């Protein structure tokens, strides 16, 4: 298809504008209604173009519009705008529409491209979405294309109209392929620069405050007797990388009991579990990059987790039970003697690393000096505190635990009984009972994890066994593409910690609730997308100086450590990636080189068939000199057997190249036949 350069330019401009608007929408700078309105105005300008050509430009109008825009923006900044960024966005949109409705020359196309670019710039600090990458790539490709087209049109504007009319630009695959190659090269170079140039400072423009907070699911309080349906939300709130599994060699089935502990409660008032006022809180400040010590180390294996936590409106730090250390960006941390770790409520995604010492299978054989039952009666009173409990609950607990060998055995029996005798349900119906636990155990005999956990803790405490309720998340779904656990809002969970003498606090989950089923094949794309999103966040959005140093260190080690060399060389994935990069760069270079090669001796407008004929002739040792015309070359070729065919091709070439005459179908066929003859005999 042949499109005239100016309409191709118009198409490119509108694509860029659409890209910019999509970016504004993505960054939340433009709402759905605003987007619809802006899109309608942009579309209308497309149809208004013919009308515009008939109207003479009014120079004073431009000045008036600029004054209006400046005034409007100043007014907006001091009065209504939620942030500077909003005012800037509105100014951009206004200028964009003005330009679209007054577009005349190719210079305006360039200005519009700049405005679209500013839209992307405005959005950059307001979003961390991976979709931005796609929009940016689109902008790069279309923008490059537009620059080339603009150059063509600008060159053409000086030419006499008769020439323009007789020879429409052929803007087919070649130009677009060239702009694709140029964009690919740009992206490659940008990527290298991004990874190498030291990351310093913060974004110049302030982030828009994030107002959206996820509140359902996890809470910093366990309240019984509420009603409603929970756990349906499949939004991913947390992603957990296990350091040991970085290379993808771990298997999630190996760790079924993994849970992400958030907050433990010690006080129960009959309806709600809370953190008692007697809890010792400690706020630590530290100098980077020393880790915060959280819990005493018992000497077992250590599990390191890198966690990306979405803003869920909680200040708790999650991690596998018995958190040892916390590395994070925050320099203030609050710890308490329940093992809860909190940081100031984050407004954006939180990225931190924790070291944990996972609990071993059966704690009964352990005898760790630091994990003995404290002799302090106040300590015991705190973890066996109870409000008045219905007598039949105490009786039930007594009945189940009768004959238990120790605390842990009693806890196991109670937990097994709960899981066996009671039903797990997500649907909560407010019964209005005075004692929700009694209602759960004897009347409804069904409830969610909070009921199970509360029931277990209360029954343990009636038997004088220290216990507490814990809120957090289940292990979540394993993402095999990104090698991490995806924890969703619906994975929010409650369980119990019971104190075992010599082993410390041990987790126990009484809920008969299974792990989520493995993902269906159809959902794999979603997993892959999620992995892509996390990589985008990990390696682009939160790419820091620290990461650069680490990467540089890895490279240095790989180069200098002998043992590392073979491992790097044999990693076929890296090889494949490197090969792809080389292929992209190579094809870009070839495309550019061919283009340059075609331009030798003047304007690069050689009809393709003549270029082919020249190549065929070159194989016979005949190449044109710089000052040699096509006819002179044909004259030199007269001694060869292809003289007739080449003379015919030369005549056709002259007609096309200098006469601006398109070949008819018959002529084109004759040209093809001549070429075939030339190429056949050239071998």
């Amino acid at each position: 298809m042949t499109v005239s350069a100016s309409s191709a330019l118009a198409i490119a401009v509108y694509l860029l504008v659409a890209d910019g608007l999509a970016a504004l929408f993505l960054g939340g700078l433009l709402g759905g209604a605003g987007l619809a309105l802006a899109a309608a105005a942009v579309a209308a300008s497309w149809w208004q173009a013919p009308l515009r050509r008939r109207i003479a430009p009014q120079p004073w109008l431009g000045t008036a519009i600029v004054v209006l825009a400046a005034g409007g923006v100043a007014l907006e900044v001091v009065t209504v705008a939620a942030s500077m960024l909003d005012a800037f966005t509105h100014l951009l949109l206004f200028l964009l529409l003005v330009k679209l409705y007054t577009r005349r020359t190719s210079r305006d196309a360039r200005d519009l491209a700049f405005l679209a670019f500013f839209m992307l710039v405005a959005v950059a600090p307001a979003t961390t979405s991976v979709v931005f990458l796609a929009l940016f790539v689109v902008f790069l490709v279309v923008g490059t294309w537009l620059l080339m087209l603009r150059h063509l049109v600008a060159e053409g504007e000086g030419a006499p109209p008769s020439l323009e009319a007789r020879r429409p630009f052929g803007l087919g695959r070649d130009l677009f392929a060239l702009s694709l190659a140029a964009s690919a090269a740009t992206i490659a170079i940008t990527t290298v620069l991004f990874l190498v140039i030291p990351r310093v400072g913060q974004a110049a423009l302030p982030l828009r405050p994030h107002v959206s907070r996820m509140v359902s699911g996890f809470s910093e309080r366990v309240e019984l007797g509420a009603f409603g349906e929970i756990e349906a939300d499949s939004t991913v709130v947390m992603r957990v990388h296990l350091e040991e599994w970085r290379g993808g060699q771990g298997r999630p089935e190996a760790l079924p009991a993994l849970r992400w502990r958030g907050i433990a409660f010690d006080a129960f008032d009959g309806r709600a579990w809370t953190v008692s006022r007697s809890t010792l809180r400690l706020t630590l400040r530290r100098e980077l990059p020393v880790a915060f010590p959280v819990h005493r180390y018992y000497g077992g294996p250590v599990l390191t987790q890198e966690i990306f936590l979405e803003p869920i409106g909680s200040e708790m730090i999650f991690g596998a039970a018995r958190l040892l250390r916390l590395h994070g960006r925050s320099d203030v941390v609050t710890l308490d003697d329940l093992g809860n770790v909190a940081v100031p409520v984050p407004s954006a995604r939180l990225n931190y690393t924790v070291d944990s010492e996972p609990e071993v299978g059966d704690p009964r054989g352990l005898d760790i000096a630091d994990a003995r039952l404290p002799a302090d009666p106040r300590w015991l009173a705190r973890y066996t505190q109870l409000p008045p409990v219905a007598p039949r609950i105490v009786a039930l607990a007594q009945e189940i635990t009768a004959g238990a060998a120790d605390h842990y055995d009693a806890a196991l029996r109670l937990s097994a009984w709960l899981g066996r005798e009671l039903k797990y349900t997500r649907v909560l119906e407010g019964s209005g009972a005075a004692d929700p636990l009694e209602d759960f155990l004897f009347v409804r005999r069904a409830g969610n994890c909070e009921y199970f956990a509360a029931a277990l803790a209360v029954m343990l405490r009636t038997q004088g066994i220290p216990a507490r309720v814990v809120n957090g998340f289940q292990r979540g779904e394993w993402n095999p593409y990104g090698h991490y656990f995806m924890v969703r809002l619906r994975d929010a969970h409650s369980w119990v910690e019971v104190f075992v003498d010599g082993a410390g606090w041990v987790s126990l989950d009484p809920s008969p609730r299974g792990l989520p089923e493995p993902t269906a094949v159809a959902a794999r794309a979603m997993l892959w997308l999620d992995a892509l999103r996390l990589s985008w966040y990990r390696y682009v959005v939160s790419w820091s100086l620290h990461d650069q140093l680490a990467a540089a260190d890895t490279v240095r080690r790989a180069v200098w450590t002998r043992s590392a060399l073979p491992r790097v060389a044999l990693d076929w994935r890296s090889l494949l990636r490197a090969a792809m990069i080389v292929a992209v760069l190579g094809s870009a270079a070839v495309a550019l080189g061919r283009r340059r090669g075609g331009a030798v001796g003047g304007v690069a407008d050689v009809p393709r068939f003549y270029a082919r004929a020249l190549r065929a002739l070159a194989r016979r040792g005949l190449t044109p000199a710089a000052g040699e015309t096509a006819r002179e070359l044909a004259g030199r070729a007269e001694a060869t057997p292809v003289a007739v065919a080449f003379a015919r091709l030369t005549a056709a070439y002259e007609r096309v190249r200098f006469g601006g005459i398109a070949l008819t179908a018959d002529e084109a066929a004759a040209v093809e036949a001549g070429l075939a003859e030339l190429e056949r005999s050239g071998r």
Partner: protein
Amino acid sequence: MTGALELIRRLEDNVARALVGKPEVIRLAVIGLLARGHLLIEDVPGVGKTTLAAALARSIGGGFQRIQFTSDMLPSDILGVSVYQPDRGDFVFKPGPLFTNIVLADEINRTTPKTQSSLLEAMNEAQVSLDHSTYQLPRPFMVLATQNPLEYEGTHALPESQLDRFLLRITIGYPGASDEKAILRGGGATPTEALGPVLAAADVLRLQDEVERVRVADSVLDYVLALVAATRAAPPLRLGVSPRGSLALLRAARARALADGRDFVVPDDVKTLAVPALAHRVLLRGATGGEVDPAAIVRALCDSVPVPR
């Protein structure tokens, strides 16, 4: 189109009856006519300069005048004079031999620069200004001048400004051996006096209009510019080609395309005509008339300037 080509063929064939064995030279002369230009035919005596000019002139229906230039000639001998007529009590302009369609200015460098210059305005604007009056020359108007090479005795070199006004400078050269034999035998050539017109003056004007419509691709324009720029930058040349020279080259190339049966110019048109159209417009550095021929320099430039592909 075919009509134009047919007319041109007829003209060329007619001239070829008088000038045997020189089809390229005849083609150049016809190009000069079609491009509304003037021709300077320069060669040693006796190769057929006058024959070419006379044959071309006689092949076209219209007026023809031959002016034999001599050293004692005055401008009024060419342009004409105002003569007092007692019965009307006024001066009346009596046109000179220039007032015709084709002028054969034979041995133009035999006369003085003053007389040579009187041709300037006529050649450039096809009009004559005399005694505060302007007289239009008939159309088509063409000057065919012949001259001997400059080093000959008793010649006055044409001023550069005058040389610049000739579209093409043509050399004829000795005929080939077989052609000369035919001439000696006396059977080959027709005397110019026996030639009749094969083209009306209106036909010539129509062909000249046709030339204007020949298409020139942008790349060919660039090629013309590159060639001209090369003459301006060439070290052996003191004076390069003027914009009038590039215009002349382009016009001649258009005419050549038409004479070749094309309605578009190819680089060959430009390259072939570079020497006839440009070589007489450049001045050599240093000694004049040495061993270096301006034509050779222009030819060398043509071989080095890249041709559009």
